């Protein structure tokens, strides 16, 4: 059967036949790097277009429809515009930090790509603490925002950065608790083991109500962590012009923009892996014929389908709900999500010990 693992294995063998082990590894790293960068570019183009179309349809508009067939090439045109635009550095800014912040945002997004299993046996780094790695690295992303806000030497930027810092630091907790509930059920931090544990059913179905609650908490928390509406206080247009990226233009702005979309993609990958079974096809109990048909769909398509479903869900949130105020935001986290998450984690732990899941 067609699979991505065969391709990677044959490339690996060919390289090892041709070169010494060290050089083969070097070329493989190079190829992985190019693959990740091109994935970034494609994601940027696809997700921006998707967001604009989804938002248009939800607001009974048409969306981009001029460039290319049905406006498909709109994001190419946008990218071209951003590429030729001047990347301005304000006079009073801290030049080094100002220019480094967007790069750091992209580096963090790239690091987060490493442990994600995109298809069966198709993973850059099978890390045995994958989940912990992801939550650790994603806590670095706040630094690039703080850096951008401080280095711009602009009060809107600084306020946006402060808000975003408070927001990300507090919502990381409930995202962590939601992730932990699946880790407790699986007994492993490795993303691969978590996927394999869902062979006979995804956690969202196997885990009854507590895992469903954890899933809802996870979606809310990651929406806040990626600074998207209704939690986009960091860049609240009506109050702070654009928050931490007020002073950015051209390609530096584009990098922040890209990092936001890639982060959305990554958290949706994690959500799909933890709760919706990663690349595992959908199976119904012992109904063999149905399960066989589902198995024929390649694992990469399963994974991407689930991920894009979650991305659509996050876009749906964005274009439905109004922005929260900062006190409402913190109330939601500290008075609702966190206590519910903690009690939910206890229930999940009891469930895991008692073996009450399927």
């Amino acid at each position, binding site marked *: 059967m067609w699979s991505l693992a065969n391709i990677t294995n044959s490339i690996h063998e060919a390289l090892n036949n041709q070169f010494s082990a060290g050089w083969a590894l070097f070329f493989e790293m190079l190829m992985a790097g190019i693959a990740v960068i091109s994935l970034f570019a494609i994601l940027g183009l696809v997700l921006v277009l998707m967001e604009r179309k989804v938002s248009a349809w939800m607001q009974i508009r048409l969306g981009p429809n001029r460039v290319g067939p049905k406006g498909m090439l709109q994001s190419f045109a946008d990218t071209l515009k951003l590429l030729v635009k001047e990347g301005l550095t304000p006079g009073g800014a801290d030049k080094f930090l100002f220019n480094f912040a967007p790069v750091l945002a992209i580096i963090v997004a790239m690091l987060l790509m490493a442990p994600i299993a995109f298809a069966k046996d198709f993973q850059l780094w099978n890390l045995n603490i994958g989940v912990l790695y992801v939550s*650790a690295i994603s806590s*670095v992303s706040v630094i690039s925002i703080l850096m951008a806000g401080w280095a711009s030497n602009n009060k809107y930027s600084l306020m946006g950065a402060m808000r975003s810092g408070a927001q990300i630091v507090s919502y990381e907790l409930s995202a962590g608790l939601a992730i932990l509930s699946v880790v407790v059920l699986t007994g492993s931090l490795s993303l691969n083991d978590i996927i394999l544990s869902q062979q006979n059913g995804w956690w969202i179905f196997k885990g009854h109500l507590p895992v469903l609650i954890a899933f809802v908490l996870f979606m809310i928390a990651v929406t806040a962590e990626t600074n998207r509406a209704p939690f986009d206080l960091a860049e609240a247009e009506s109050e702070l012009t654009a928050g931490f990226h007020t002073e950015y233009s051209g390609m530096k702005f584009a990098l922040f923009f890209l990092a936001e979309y890639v982060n959305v993609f990554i958290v949706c990958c994690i959500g799909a892996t933890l709760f919706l079974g990663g690349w595992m096809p959908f199976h119904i109990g012992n109904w063999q014929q149905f399960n066989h048909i589902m198995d024929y769909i390649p694992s990469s398509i399963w994974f991407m389908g689930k991920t894009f479903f979650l991305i659509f869900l996050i876009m749906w949130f964005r274009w439905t709900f109004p922005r929260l105020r900062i006190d409402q935001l913190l109330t939601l986290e500290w008075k609702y999500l966190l206590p519910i998450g903690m009690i939910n984690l206890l229930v999940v732990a009891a469930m895991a010990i008692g073996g009450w899941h399927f």
Partner: protein
Amino acid sequence: MTGNQIIFYLLALLTLGSAVLAVSTRHIFRAAVFLLFALMGMAGLFFWMNYAFIAAVQIVVYVGGITVLIIFSIFLTQETGEKLPQQLWSRRFIAALASFCALAFTLTQIFQHTFNASKQTAIEVSVQQIGLQMLGTNQYGYALPFELISILLLAAMIGCIVIAIRLKPTS
């Protein structure tokens, strides 16, 4: 030089270089950022040694926790773009002396110790083992320190609440 060594030297260079920059820069925010790079370099070294768990914990605690805390306190207390005042020469001398003494002490300790190259193959410590050790009550268990630290943190949290709480004026 093998690829492994190249990676080690790159990480060491990152760690040491940003550590030096962190203490020599006069922009306080840059100092915090360079400290962050030094800590990231350390985490990279842990990854290089295949201690992924410790590396991740290093990032969670130091980079995601402490550095963000430092940056926040800078935000709340300092003005943007201001350079720190030049340090006094006497203070610089004392600082240099202190760091030299520390370096000398560490180096003598390292050179006196005879390192035995381990013959064992590298084992990947699973998180399960770490967890059992952490909450174990046997010889190498850490249950008691773990609980003590929990109580310490709880006390700190209650202290924070007591400081931050605003009593309603009784009238």
